[in-house]
C-alpha cells in the first residue's frame, strides 16, 4: 500500500462535541481537545493518515485529506492483528 501523505485535517467545530474518541485512539497522538472541548490538530507531522479518527468520529466532524485521496484502505481496526489483544 502506498503511503498516504497528509494534506490537512478538516475539523468541523460546529459538529464536534468533544467526546475525545479521536484523541484517545489516535495511534500517533496527533489530536488533542482544546479549551473549548473541541478537537484540534497539534502534531500534524506525525499523522500517518490511517483515518481512523474520521471513521470513528460519532459526530462526523473530522475529515483527513491526503495526497492520494482514493478511498483509503487504512490500517486495520481488527484486533486479531492487534497484538495487545492477542495475549
Amino acid at each position, binding site marked *: 500500500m502506498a503511503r498516504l501523505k497528509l494534506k490537512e485535517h478538516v475539523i468541523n467545530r*460546529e*459538529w*464536534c*462535541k*468533544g*467526546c*475525545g*474518541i479521536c484523541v*484517545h*485512539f489516535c495511534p500517533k497522538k496527533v489530536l488533542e481537545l482544546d479549551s473549548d472541548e473541541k478537537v484540534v490538530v497539534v502534531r500534524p507531522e506525525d499523522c500517518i493518515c490511517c483515518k*481512523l479518527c474520521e*471513521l*470513528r*468520529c*460519532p*459526530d*462526523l*466532524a473530522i*475529515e483527513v485529506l491526503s495526497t492520494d485521496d482514493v*478511498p483509503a484502505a*487504512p490500517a*486495520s*481496526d*481488527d*484486533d*486479531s492483528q*492487534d497484538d495487545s*489483544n*492477542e495475549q
Partner: protein
Amino acid sequence: MAIKDYLRQRYFPHMWCPGCGHGIVLNALIRAVQGMGLDKNDIVMTSGIGCSARISGYVDFHTLHTLHGRALAFATGVKLSKPELTLLVPMGDGDALAIGGNHFIHAARRNIDITAIVMNNRIYGMTGGQFSPLSGIGKKATTAPYTTIDSNFDVVKMAVASGATFVARTTAYHVLEAVDLLQKAISHKGFSVVEILSQCPTHYGRKNKEGDASSMMEFQKSKTGKLGSKALEKDPTLIPRGIFVDDKDASEYCSAYDKIIETAMKGR
C-alpha cells in the same frame, strides 16, 4: 459522491450525546453505502423510536421514522410493494427486541430482503436509562436501582433461530469491520442482521461505571473476539464478532411472491 452528500447536513450537529456509538454506526453506514455506489433514490431507511431511530433523519435517502418497534413491519410493506428498493432498518435494542421482538423474528422467518441493523447499547437512552432486554443480569439502570435480574437475549442467536440468512456482529470500535459487514449484509439477498455493539456513555456507561466513550470502546476492543481468532479460542468468555450465517441459497420472500403472481396470472 462525497460522504457528506449522503447526509442531510442542515440538521447537523445531530442530537446524540457526545461519544454516542450511534454516530459511529451512522458514519459506518454511509461509508458502506458510498463504497457500494448505491443510488440514494433506491434506498429507503425505516426506523422506529428511540435514540437509534433518529438516524433516519440524518441520511439523504427516502426515510420513514415510524413507531416504537414497528420499523420492520413498515419496511416489509415498502419492500414487498416495491422490491427494487434497498431497505435499511436501523433499530435500538429495545426497539428491535422488546416492543419490536415479534416483528423482528417474523421478518427473519420470511427472509424478506431487508437489512436490519441492531444498534445495541444495552439501554433505553432516550427515556433516560432504563434497562433493556439486552442489558443482562446484574446491571444498573434507572428502573433497576438494585441491579437487573432479567436475562438478556443474544441478538445473533435470536436472528439465527428465527431464520435470518445473513447474521453478523461487530462493534462501534471496529468501524472498518462494521463497514465491511454492512456492505455484505446489504448485498445479501434475504433478511440480514448486523448487530453493532454501541456505547451509551451518558446512561449505561455512567450507571455501570464503565467510564467515558473511549473506555467503553476499549471494552468493545478487549472483550470481543473475531470468529476463528486465537483470542476467541483462548478466551470463550469474549463476545464473538464476525459472520455467523451467510446462506445464499434460501428463498427470498419477494422473489417467492413473484412466482405466486406468475402462477395466479396463468390461472386466469
